[in-house]
């Protein structure tokens, strides 16, 4: 997972008036030419702030996203699934590590970011506030949530901030394996017993609404982000990403014989875009602001893990620690 396209809030552009106009113009010209901005380059404060927020949210989403699937590692049916799911979730934790490092280049420490996650000050992808009840839910996540993440991350990989783009290039390569794994799991459920098919259909019914929320509020109601688009922080609109996802995956879901729980879902031949029932954006807001089925549990797990690991991190800072060089 799991990009941050869904969590852009309204931004104040006032601070731009304080920036050196010449430097700002040079900065924008570099981005327009397709150059990457590197950590020591000049950048407007607003750019720095938005990037930290976005990369940090992305990192949190990776590590929180490891939880709903992680609980299925110990229950995965058979060696092949068990081994693949372990590797997959491990990758997600690795993505968090890469992304925290990328965000650190902009001046915020990992500790601070994790603190802000635990206190609820910074957000993560809303979809992980929903529970994974069955094995089929974990398969839905591996296939379709990761698919959504890829749409988002491939777009962001073409953004303007060098360290984030490089992290995303590595991440996207791994995500494509996750997608293959997830698709494979769903194919087995689809071609399996009646019970297995039913398990996935129920997972699809549960996860479709949060999946539609995944790309963020409809363009009609979302905050204006022109300056972020110009700076290649935000690379495409929420509706464009949602449409791209539907284009790629609805046919694949139908092909497996499952029913998507939206009677209005169809491709409009005139616009070439997908029509669907407008997602419930009130629910989206409620959940992202803390009132979802799993918000408390997810943050509690993270908080307890941090608390239980505190003594280890303290010990690593100990001055009495003789540095031990590993001999490979």
């Amino acid at each position: 997972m799991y990009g941050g396209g869904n969590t852009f809030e309204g931004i104040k552009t006032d601070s731009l008036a304080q920036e050196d106009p010449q430097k700002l113009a040079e900065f924008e010209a570099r981005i327009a030419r397709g150059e990457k901005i590197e950590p020591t380059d000049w950048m407007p404060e607003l750019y720095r702030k938005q990037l930290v927020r976005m990369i940090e949210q992305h990192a949190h989403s990776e590590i929180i996203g490891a939880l709903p699937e992680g609980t299925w590692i110990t229950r995965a049916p058979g060696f092949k699934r068990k081994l693949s799911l372990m590797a997959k979730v491990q990758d997600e934790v690795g993505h968090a590590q890469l992304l925290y490092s990328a965000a650190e280049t902009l001046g915020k420490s990992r500790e601070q970011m994790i603190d802000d996650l635990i206190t609820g000050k910074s957000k993560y992808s809303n979809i992980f506030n929903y529970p994974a009840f069955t094995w089929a839910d974990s398969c839905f996540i591996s296939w379709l949530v990761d698919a959504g993440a890829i749409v988002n991350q491939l777009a962001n990989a073409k953004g303007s901030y060098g360290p984030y783009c490089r992290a995303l290039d590595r991440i996207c390569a791994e995500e494509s394996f996750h997608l293959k794994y997830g698709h494979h799991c769903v194919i087995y459920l689809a071609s399996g017993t009646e019970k297995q098919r039913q398990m996935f259909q129920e997972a699809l019914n549960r996860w479709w609404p949060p999946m539609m929320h995944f790309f963020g509020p409809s363009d009609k109601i979302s905050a204006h982000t022109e300056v972020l688009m110009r700076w290649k922080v935000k690379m495409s609109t929420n509706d464009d990403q949602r449409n791209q996802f539907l284009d790629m995956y609805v046919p694949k879901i139908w092909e497996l014989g499952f029913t998507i729980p939206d009677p209005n879902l169809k491709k409009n031949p005139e616009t070439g875009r997908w029509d669907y029932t407008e997602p419930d954006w009130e629910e989206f807001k409620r959940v992202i602001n803390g009132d979802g089925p799993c918000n408390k549990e997810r943050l509690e797990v993270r908080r307890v893990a941090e608390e239980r690991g505190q003594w280890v991190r303290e010990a690593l800072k100990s001055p009495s620690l003789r540095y031990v060089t590993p001999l490979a």
Partner: protein
Amino acid sequence: MNELALKELLYKIADDQLILGHRNSEWTGFGPLLEEDIAFSSMAQDKVGQSYAIYQMLNQLGEQEPDTVAFMRNANQFHNCQLVELPNGEYDFSLIRHFLYDTAEITRFDFLANSSYEPLAQLARKIKGELKYHTLHANTWIKKLGNATEESIGRLQGSLNKALPYALGIFEPSPLEQEIIASGFFAGEEVLKKQWMEKVELLLSQTQLNLPDWKTIQPVLGGRVGQHTEHLQPLLDEMSEVFRIDPSAEW
């Protein structure tokens, strides 16, 4: 070839790897540092993968499919030592167990690389390469945390004291121990234990941890003949929860 003795040896090794691999994987998402989540997950993948390879070898010898063997047996049919089935506890316990177990494991595979059963010798030579990183990881962390703060040293000491009786249970002789040795499949638990003790003593001497006199430690036995703590059956129930919905289904 004494197939019964060979299978007994293979089962206990595979069961050890599977159960500890499963326990290691429980750290995913909960580690004290992201780096440790990742490390424990790597070791979990190696161990579960190794158990899979050994169950495949057993399958070649006429036993059931690896999935059936791993996901359908009950606790009393497992021959892992009790050390590996204990819950993860806090990080200090998981780390101490990892150190004690993996030190034995790499030594065991050193011996197995010379097994008279050629498929096992070949596999052991391959596995040894993976295990090198496990002991490197364990040794590095034990040395770090065993020399750091009062709390880290105290925690490791407490967990060491708790784990040692179970660790000696790794070397519980198999019922067919003499046949295993005589057939040249493996040098035997007694020889393994001696080398293990030396390695454990050497590493701990580089820390501020105290190793109690071996003679005072009462080994916890029984795992090798299917006697387990109350922790193994729930682990297996969880592991097979989905598989048992329909064991004939393909997942």
